């Protein structure tokens, strides 16, 4: 499949180039200007009067680049006029015919360009054939950036995806296709969108007009009906495409294309650290997560999806019991050996991605004569580490290095969890924090009655579904 774009591009490149209106002098014998770029704009995008703004000039100068060619001899000179042919100035010329010309235009004055290519046999192109005018308008980029931002906001609130994408630059710094899909998912997931921005600054950074703003936002989840709100600050960048400003970049936290996450955002606004931000999950639900606040921040983690909750295993079963409320696995008693097994598993999250299970094992042969307690298996093939703290919310990150985890775990994965301690769990696909708030498991041997196993365990968990070891 990856070969198809290459084939396509090759076909496009191989297609015959037809003469366009900007191709000067058409007869075979005369020289002609075959490529032309004015202030970075290709000639095919030029109109009769090319309007531009001071930020498109290089140090106040308008730069014209191009290439002239001829069928006989070589190009000897390229002359440029900025006053409709009254005066011509020599452009810098290379042997290949490539030329360069710059001049300082006057703001709000129309300059009429003509270009004449002369070859070494003395023939010249018709300068009027490809003439064009340029007009440098006063810099109103700040006002334009603000107007464009308000327009984007309006279109987003109205769920007008096509209108919105028309205002996104072709060379959008993030993934343009992902932004479009992110908008689509936002509009599908959010039944009501309200955003109140407050502009903090508008300024030029290189060729990009940046707008930084704080915002208050309220949305309603279409699937759950929940109304959630957040507030933070972020930055957007706009560049000029043709005569108009277009959306060029967005930093996280995003207010547009929230579902696209790191594919649409190309940076993280460091000042937004610590804020609770709305995010759209892959399932289309809206959740609030912590915006990354430290150096570990990456844009793709802004949709970090931390799931919190509790799982409990509470059960008391006697020999021969089949308690469906407790487990589908019955306590098994074999009279000859009194081999008792008990197993009850609970999943922290029941979905295809990201789950942690805890299994209470009681497997004694022969059974102990007094309460011995259960052993626990925390998600097979996982690693576990006692973090030595009692408050899961105090843990910001866990180690991603396997060497930092316990090495004394037996092959069957059984560990003894101490109630009140927080454990870091690393599975092949995720990181989790697990705290056994209660972890009681006891065995009562038959004293004239049946064998009884009682389990009363409650686990508090935090699962990071975004495959990173950060929990903020």
């Amino acid at each position, binding site marked *: 499949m990856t070969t198809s*774009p290459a084939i396509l591009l090759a076909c496009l490149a191989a297609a015959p180039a037809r003469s366009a209106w900007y191709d000067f002098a058409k007869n075979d014998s005369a020289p002609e200007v075959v490529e032309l770029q004015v202030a970075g704009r290709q000639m095919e995008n030029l109109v009769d009067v090319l309007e531009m703004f001071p930020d498109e000039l*290089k140090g106040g100068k308008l730069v014209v680049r191009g290439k002239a060619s001829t069928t006989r001899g070589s190009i000897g000179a390229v002359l440029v006029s900025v006053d409709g042919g009254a005066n011509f100035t020599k452009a810098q010329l290379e042997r290949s015919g490539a030329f360069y010309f710059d001049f300082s235009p006057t703001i709000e004055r129309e300059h009429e360009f003509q270009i004449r290519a002369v070859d070494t046999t003395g023939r010249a192109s018709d300068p009027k054939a490809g003439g064009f005018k340029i007009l440098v308008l006063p810099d109103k980029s700040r006002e334009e950036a603000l107007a464009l931002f308000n327009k984007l906001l309006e279109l987003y609130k109205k769920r007008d995806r096509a209108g919105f994408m028309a205002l996104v630059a072709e060379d959008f710094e993030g993934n343009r296709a992902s932004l479009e899909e992110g908008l689509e998912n936002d509009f599908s997931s959010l039944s009501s969108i309200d955003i109140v921005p407050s502009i903090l*600054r508008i300024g030029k950074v290189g060729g990009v007009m940046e707008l930084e703003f704080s915002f208050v936002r309220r949305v309603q989840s279409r699937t759950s009906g929940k109304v959630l709100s957040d507030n933070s600050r972020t930055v957007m960048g706009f560049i000029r495409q043709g005569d108009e400003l277009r959306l060029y970049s967005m930093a996280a936290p995003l207010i547009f294309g929230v579902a696209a996450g790191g594919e649409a955002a190309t940076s993280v606004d460091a*000042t937004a650290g610590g804020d609770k931000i709305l995010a759209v999950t892959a399932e289309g639900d809206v959740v609030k997560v912590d915006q990354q606040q430290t150096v570990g921040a*990456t*844009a793709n983690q802004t949709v970090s999806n931390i799931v919190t909750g509790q799982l409990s295993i509470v059960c008391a079963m006697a020999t021969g019991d089949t308690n469906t409320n407790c487990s589908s696995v019955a306590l098994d008693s074999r009279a000859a050996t009194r081999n008792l097994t008990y197993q009850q598993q609970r999943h922290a999250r029941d979905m295809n991605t990201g789950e942690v299970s805890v299994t209470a094992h009681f497997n004694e042969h022969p059974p102990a004569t007094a309460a011995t307690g259960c052993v626990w298996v925390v998600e097979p093939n996982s690693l576990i580490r006692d973090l030595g703290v009692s408050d899961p919310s105090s843990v910001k990150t866990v180690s991603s290095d396997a060497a930092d985890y316990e090495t004394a775990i037996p092959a069957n994965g059984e560990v003894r969890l101490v109630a009140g301690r927080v454990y870091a769990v*690393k599975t092949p*696909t995720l990181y989790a924090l697990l705290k056994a708030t209660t972890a009681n498991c006891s065995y009562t041997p038959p004293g004239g009655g049946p064998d009884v196993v009682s389990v009363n365990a409650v686990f508090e968990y935090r699962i990071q579904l975004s495959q990173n070891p950060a929990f903020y």
Partner: protein
Amino acid sequence: MLNRVPLLILAAALASPGVTAAQAPASEKFLEIDSRTTVRMTQVSGLGRSASFYRSGTYAVEEPALYFRKSFAQDWRTSAEFRPRFTNDKLTDQRGFSIETLSMEVRNSSRIFSAGDYFAVMSQYSMSQLIKGAAYQRNFRNEENYLRAALGSFDGQWEYLYKEDPNEPMDRRGGGLRGQLARDKYRMGLNWAFVQDDRQDSVRQRTREDAYYQNVGALDWEWRPGTLTLDGEHAAMVTTRAPLNAARTKNHGHANRIRIQGNLLGTRLQGSFENVAKDFTPLAGSASSDRRRYNLQADRRLTPLWRAFAKFSLSHDDLEGSNLKTRTTLTNYDIGVTRTKLFGRKNLEASLAWRRSQTDTRNYTRDKTSDRLQVNVSDQLAKTLRGSILFEPTLDKDHSRGTDARHYFYEVRLSDRRRLPKSWSMNTTLSGRERDTDNLVSLGYDRQRGGALLLDFSRPGGMQTGAEYDLSTTDLHTGTDSRTDRGRAFFEFKPKVFGDMTSGLEYNLARYRFSDPLRNYDEHHVRLSLTWKI
């Protein structure tokens, strides 16, 4: 007291021009004042009004600004800007008063001294940050060749500099150096930036956040051979992380990006490559860490009537290929054609585009392919009337769950733009859309429908008036349906009272309706705005 704030602000806004106008000398205008005043009166009603974003009441925001400019001693100029904000609207600003901008600059053709709010711009990866501090720039030859230095605090608010705020993050400061050399065909910049958290910040903040110290070096360049432009940046970073009660750790990261754009053999090309390591996490610059991106797009006018384009992009995270993570790879293919003057009609344009988006996760916990077809037709239906139709069927295939989902999107748009007597012009836009989303849980389609009508009258001189109505409904196969009506009427004009003044009045109505009537509520807003400049 709060209820009197809007009136006081409005009174101050109206009263102040007379005072300041007298200060401006007739010969040289060195003081410029502008002001933006907004008063919003809001009424929220209905049983479900607690779900509203707004609270009933009158709120005002006043943002005056003072600009000072003065020339002195040959070619030296100085300028200053002060922009505070007063408000009782917590949606706009939690503080009643804040200083938005405070800056000054002294410059001539070769030297620039700046202080206060300053955009410290070195390069994308190294530093692009608003600081409160000082900067110096020395130009050589012209403004394209220079040496720049900046140093300051990253505090978002001026008040964070002198008082402790519960919402304030740990104090952070930084600075950088940039030297740029530019000639006709190339430009090159060398950058160094550093960021340092304040170890002496209060203990409360230190228990909440780790401290960081970072150094970044970067080289950025641009080369313009013929009609092509190539540019790039290469950066390396060292970051030290200092938790409160744990040992310091040091990370090294690097980032590279290269881009090419221009015209090659009549085909407009654009390509880019970017690789940002997991540990390249700039605190003052910007980058999307742990990500590699490729992008290539081309478009070409095949004939005067036909145009074709193709795009390919691929990106993935988890650059180190860690087994502890699931690498997610996103691939997009776009291909399309546009035909103008279809059926001999001068303005009839049709485009057909296909997009395939693939999302693959290494262990196939998610593996989706989405194919979207987009058909867009637009035409000039009458002298002033344009119309367009958009149709998008999408097929999502989730391989890991073995499910397919079909979604459809339709949109029709009509717009009319005509001139009326006495220099008035009228714009009318009518649009309708429907989005049908296959719900794999309820095994039915969730439908969202919307329609909008905009009527806008304007005339030269800044007078504008009109009305807008927008309706959107959500019809879930199972679940609570909802309907939102939004209406807006507005009037804006430029009274010739003094200076450059714009006044506006706007009325907004939003009605939220649900299948559960206990959740219904209405929002009414009347917004009065006044901006002026002298």
